[in-house]
């Protein structure tokens, strides 16, 4: 970096403010000569987007926007992503608003003038068909200009409204009113019918009385019939009862005869023992039938055993898939955790060494996340430890709560705390000067720039630097 700046200083005067908007896009390729590529790289080399420019012109032509400060309009367009050239072009097209900043962009005069002429020609054409009598007028030029067409649009709207109003009036007259009238007539007719029905009901009272008398006589006749039926049924029941009694007598007589016959048979029992053996054989046939019924349920078991196996397979397959995807994640996390653990262990090991405790970690952070390099860098630690003076003991610093209490006091009383710090600062400055004399290391820069006068190199101890600072103060 130190060698580049002098060459850039020399070429600063040679380069003028080149508007690079229309220059080729050379920024993509790195050029060996960096001085000439600087303005090309850091400038927007896109072509102008006409659509964006038109949107910007619409925005700027809005009356509300015209009342706002110019700075706000510019910043709004910038926030929308327009480039400087597009914004400048939009400001150029809307002549009322003036851009605040002078731009160095190249003006495309021919194209700008032609586009503005087209817009001006479109506007007078739009005025002629601006008196519409009906809505069927097609204005092709209406699409070009915007502001002049408000009048014609308003007239067209009025015509449409009038036509629609007339149409609705006609429709109402033709269809709705007759319906209303018919509906009214129906209501009136219904009312008349109801009145007629009421008159018919009056002369029927006398007839109803005669009918009531007739019904009463009929009811009396029915009652007489019912009573007669009751008497007949009773007589029939008596007859049935007599018949039943006679049958019972018959059965009693038969029973007596049966008992007499049984007594005669008991004498002959000894000779009838063969009939019992036949009854026992009939019962054995029923047992054989029950054994056959148990066999069909046994055959259902094998198909049921197959089903659980078929369900296992897709489940197992999905389980296998899940486990396989989780494994690499676990491995990745494991590696990251391992790396962190290694970091902490190695940092604990470094607590032994002194001065550049922060330097020790240099070799380790070459590539992050690469475990193999950690082992390789362990050897470099041994090399680095030779340089600083060894200090084996390392006591941890003071715990934070104590520091917090001091800070709380300091906040409550800032002024006395500040005075105390100034006292301590004077002491620390004296200490720092001693330290700076002991430091013999040379800062990076071997050459000095124009700001530092004289050929003072940084190898000179701090006393010369103090003289230089005093010179600066005098200036």
């Amino acid at each position: 970096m130190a060698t580049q700046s002098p060459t850039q200083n020399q070429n600063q005067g040679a380069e003028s403010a080149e508007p690079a908007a229309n220059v080729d896009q050379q920024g993509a390729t790195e050029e060996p000569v960096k001085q000439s590529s600087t303005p090309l790289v850091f400038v927007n080399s896109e072509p102008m987007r006409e659509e964006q420019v038109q949107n910007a012109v619409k925005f700027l032509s809005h009356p509300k926007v015209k009342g706002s400060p110019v700075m706000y309009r510019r910043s709004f367009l910038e926030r929308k992503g327009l480039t400087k050239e597009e914004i400048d072009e939009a400001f150029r097209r809307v002549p009322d608003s003036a851009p605040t900043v002078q731009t160095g962009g190249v003006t495309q005069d021919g194209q700008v003038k032609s586009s503005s002429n087209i817009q001006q020609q479109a506007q007078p054409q739009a005025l002629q068909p601006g008196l519409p009598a009906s809505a069927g007028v097609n204005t092709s030029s209406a699409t070009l200009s915007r502001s002049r067409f408000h009048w014609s649009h308003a007239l067209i709207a009025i015509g449409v409204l009038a036509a629609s109003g007339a149409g609705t009036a006609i429709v109402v007259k033709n269809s709705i009113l007759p319906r209303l009238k018919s509906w009214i007539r129906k209501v009136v007719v219904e009312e008349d019918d109801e009145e007629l029905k009421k008159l018919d009901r009056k002369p029927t009272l006398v007839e109803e009385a005669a009918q009531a008398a007739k019904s009463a006589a009929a009811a009396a006749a029915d009652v007489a019939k019912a009573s007669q039926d009751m008497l007949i049924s009773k007589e029939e029941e008596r007859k049935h009862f007599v018949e039943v009694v006679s049958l019972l007598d018959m059965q009693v007589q038969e029973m007596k005869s049966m008992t007499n016959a049984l007594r005669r048979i008991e004498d002959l029992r000894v000779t009838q023992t063969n009939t019992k053996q036949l009854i026992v054989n009939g019962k054995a046939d029923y047992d054989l039938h029950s054994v056959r019924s148990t066999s069909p349920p046994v055959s259902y078991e094998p198909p049921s055993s197959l089903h659980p196996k078929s369900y296992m397979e897709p489940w197992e397959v999905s389980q296998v898939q899940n486990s396989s995807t989780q494994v690499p994640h676990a491995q990745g996390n494991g590696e990251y955790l391992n790396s962190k653990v290694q970091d902490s262990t190695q940092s604990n090991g470094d607590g032994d060494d002194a001065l550049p405790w922060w330097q020790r970690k240099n070799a380790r952070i070459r590539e992050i996340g690469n475990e193999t390099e950690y082992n390789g860098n362990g050897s470099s630690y041994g090399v680095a430890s030779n340089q600083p003076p060894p200090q084996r003991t390392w006591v941890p610093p003071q715990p934070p709560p104590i520091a917090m209490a001091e800070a709380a006091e300091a906040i409550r009383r800032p002024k006395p705390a500040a005075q105390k710090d100034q006292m301590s600062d004077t002491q620390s400055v004296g200490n720092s000067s001693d330290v700076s004399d002991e430091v013999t290391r040379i800062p990076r820069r071997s050459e000095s720039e124009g700001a530092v006068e004289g050929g003072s190199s940084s190898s000179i101890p701090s006393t010369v630097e103090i003289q230089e600072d005093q010179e600066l103060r005098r200036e």
Partner: protein
Amino acid sequence: MPVFKTPFNGYSVKFSPFYEDRLAVATAQNFGILGNGRLHVLSLSPNPSQPFTEIAAYDTADGVYDVAWSESHDSLLVAAVADGSVKLYDTALPPTSNPIRSLREHTREVHSADYNPLRRDSFLTSSWDDTVKLWTLDRPSSLRTFKEHSYCVYSAVWNPRHADVFASASGDCTLRVWDVREPSSTMVFPPHELEVLTCDWNKYDDCIIATASVDKSIKVWDVRSFRVPIAVMNGHGYAVRKVRFSPHVRNLMVSCSYDMTVCVWDFMVEDALVSRYDHHTEFAVGVDMSVLVEGLMASTGWDELVYVWQHGTDPRAP
């Protein structure tokens, strides 16, 4: 790992480009809203009982929002103060003669300061008055004022490869790339839909820039094709306050956020988050990676603590 307790809320921390063990911390009282400020210059010591020694501490009338080490003098510091002034300090001089210069030109709080690493004679300050100013050490007034943003400019960072190019991130949601030799900005595009709080150039690739915003995301862009970002890194829970590319590893960057974490990212990898440190108990607003010591990083936050640790180790481990 050493921890330093500042009396005020931390705002920014920067490693010295000359000394490996030196860093500067910018702090402000009452979270930077109202009150004094203090600039600490700390030195890391090998003595384990006292890991930090305070070389210098300078009080200011208003909070210090940012600090920048000079690249030409090893004892010079530039402080961005909330009252609109830019103060120069020299640690080699006694505290009574500090600040050696107080530059008053900004009309509102100065939010960031950055020293030119190539020319080494000039520095930028960006302010809430929508401007970026260019200064040199020898002049009492600014060389140039860049006024194109329409809201607070939160950060202005020099390109580490091109001495005259810098980028500015602003609350008007745009990022502008400037060339000091040009009269106006050379590029402007909106990296985020919300305010862009910070930006930083890649130290190895001169056209790659990272931006971070209130929308909790960090985006890495190539300025040659700025319509689509190279990488978008989500992971922070709140607005990202600061982003820094590593000076040693091409793809590595560190960010700190209002979600109290400091995250390290590798933007060329699909899963960009490399590590996350949640050692702060308040907003983490300042982070830096050392140029001289690879992997050494420091962070500070509104919990009034400054941590210095190696990447890969636990910042709170003793």
